[in-house]
């Protein structure tokens, strides 16, 4: 084993221990535990929902004109919509859509943003500042606005909404990877690798990128909550999923015509969004507190 690998290994061990600490803080904090429980429940719903939903055909769009806009009851747990479809079943089906779309937005954004940031941070100079300038331009848009423009250009569909959100989402990870790469670039083990003549491209792949993975993965998981709201917002504007998709944002959108007389219509899909996002945010809050060294000291007042 070369000395360089030994140093790299101790780095890995340090990271591993940090991760362990974070995990311990998460399981001892009731709020983050609640968040974790919510996420797990929704994951289970996403997997088994379509099999246990009482009215699977209606969830996929089949109307039942005998039972329009019925209030919640034993038959229809969350009531029915304007086409007589069981809202509860549609929400069960929607969990998968919501999780898959938001996860794809975040995952692809990470895959684009992270390498760009690592390259910008490691090479610095002209290439680095060019990448970061472009990143800044994308970050200059208020949240959701650029996605709105792209989605309006592409036309309303679930796929286009996801694409539009990716376009506006990746710069955040470039930012994060960039700052991480800047601090890693001058660590002794990277210096050592350079000194023995390892090529830059290999250093980026083997040393810089791995160092950016952990913080970005944490951030990406926490961002799932905002991604869910973003996807729902585009659907709400009519730029996302199209009927009869059982998408939560779309259900709230169609529900807005009816909900003043039929309160259950928009309430339950919105509640589903709220609870799932709450799960991610509860977990995120605890993680953020755990990894922020400034907050770990004792208190006075």
């Amino acid at each position, binding site marked *: 084993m070369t000395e360089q690998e030994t140093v790299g290994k101790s780095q890995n061990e340090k990271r591993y221990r940090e991760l362990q600490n974070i995990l311990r803080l998460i399981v001892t904090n009731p*709020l983050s535990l609640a968040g974790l429980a919510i996420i797990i429940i929704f994951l289970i719903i996403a997997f088994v929902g379509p099999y246990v939903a009482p009215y699977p055909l209606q969830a996929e769009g089949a109307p039942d004109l005998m039972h329009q806009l019925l209030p919640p009851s034993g038959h229809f747990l969350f009531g029915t919509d304007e086409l007589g479809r069981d809202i509860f079943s549609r929400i069960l089906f929607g969990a998968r859509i919501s999780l898959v779309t938001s996860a794809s937005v975040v995952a692809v954004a990470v895959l684009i943003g992270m390498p760009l940031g690592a390259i910008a941070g490691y090479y610095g100079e002209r290439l680095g500042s060019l990448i970061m300038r472009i990143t800044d331009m*994308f970050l200059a848009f208020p949240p959701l606005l650029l996605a709105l423009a792209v989605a309006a*250009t592409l036309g309303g569909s679930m796929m286009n909404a996801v694409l539009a959100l990716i376009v506006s989402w990746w710069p955040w990870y470039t930012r994060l990877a960039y700052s991480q790469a800047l601090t890693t670039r001058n660590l002794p083990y990277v210096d050592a690798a350079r000194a023995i003549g390892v090529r830059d491209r290999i250093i980026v792949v083997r040393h810089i990128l791995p160092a950016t993975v952990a913080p970005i993965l944490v951030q990406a998981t926490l961002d799932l909550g905002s991604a869910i709201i973003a996807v729902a917002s585009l659907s709400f*504007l009519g730029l996302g999923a199209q009927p009869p998709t059982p998408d939560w944002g779309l259900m709230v959108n169609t529900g807005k015509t009816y909900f003043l007389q039929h309160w259950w219509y928009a309430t339950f899909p*919105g509640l589903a969004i709220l609870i799932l996002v709450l799960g991610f945010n509860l977990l995120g809050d605890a993680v953020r507190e755990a990894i922020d060294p400034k907050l770990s000291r004792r208190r006075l007042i």
Partner: protein
Amino acid sequence: MKDLGQYVVRRVAHAFIVIVGVLLITFLVSHVIPGNPAALWVGSHPTADEIRKATEDLGLNKPLYVQFYIYITNLLSGNLGVSIRTHNPVLSDIAVGLAATLELIIVAFLIATVGGILVGVFSAAHRDRFPDHFGRVVAILGVSMAPFWLAMILQLLFSQTLNMFPLAGRLSTSVSIIYPLKRITGFNLIDSLIEGNFVAFTDSVWHIFLPALALAAYPFGLSVRMVRTMMIEVLQENYTRSELAWGLTSRIILFKYALKNAISSTVIALGMSFAYSLTGAFLDEIIFVWPGLGTYTALSILALDYPAIMGTVIAVAAFYVVINLLVDIFQAFMDPRVTL
């Protein structure tokens, strides 16, 4: 002070570059992504003549850099195109909607700021005890709600069921007929005060309350989180400890000394929350039929009114860059270390 001046110049130059970048990106989105840009600009049922005219006007048959030049010169002369739906120049439509949106955002911002600072300080002062947990849960709830859904729930509860607030709109029809408002600033709350029209003023407050509350939830949660974090940091510093040792009451320490040192980050938090309200307002307005940019955009999306959508996006993005610039300068003014 000299540093501050240099900083401002540098920051303004940077903002200028960013605006050019924003225009470049919107250009790429509107001219390069679509299969047939001309068809987008003329709406859903174009005739061949209309498409030809749009192609001509936008220079779509010319090379890209010429198209970009045409695009930029049009924008700089204030020409954002003509709305397909309203047939007005997009810029004048935006000017009408902007005041209503800004009024809503500013009221929401005030609610979020006051609430955020109070709850944040309170949370930090009782760190890890019941009030802190409560404050944090409220803050997290605030950032977890889809703004349009919260708007609907508030409307359902307080307007429809309890009848405490008007359902929608900016001013009651009866009030606008009997006590009409002259358009001075475009802000109903200010215009009615200038004219001494207290009936319209009360009515405006009545109308703005629920939409502003719905819009305030997200920035409120954001500010609580930032203020709390900052306050905890400051409260751990040694000078806070000596103040405590001198026997200053904790309220004076909290609000007079600690908050002052946390102010720079608080300003960042507020700037961020303002940014979020900008697009949050879009979703909020649709529910309350608030006659601002959000409702305008939503109607434009429904009508496939592409010039109106892109015009609003450009205007709001430019506005956002300017707000960020002002926040940065204000922050440098409050905390000279920023200019280093």
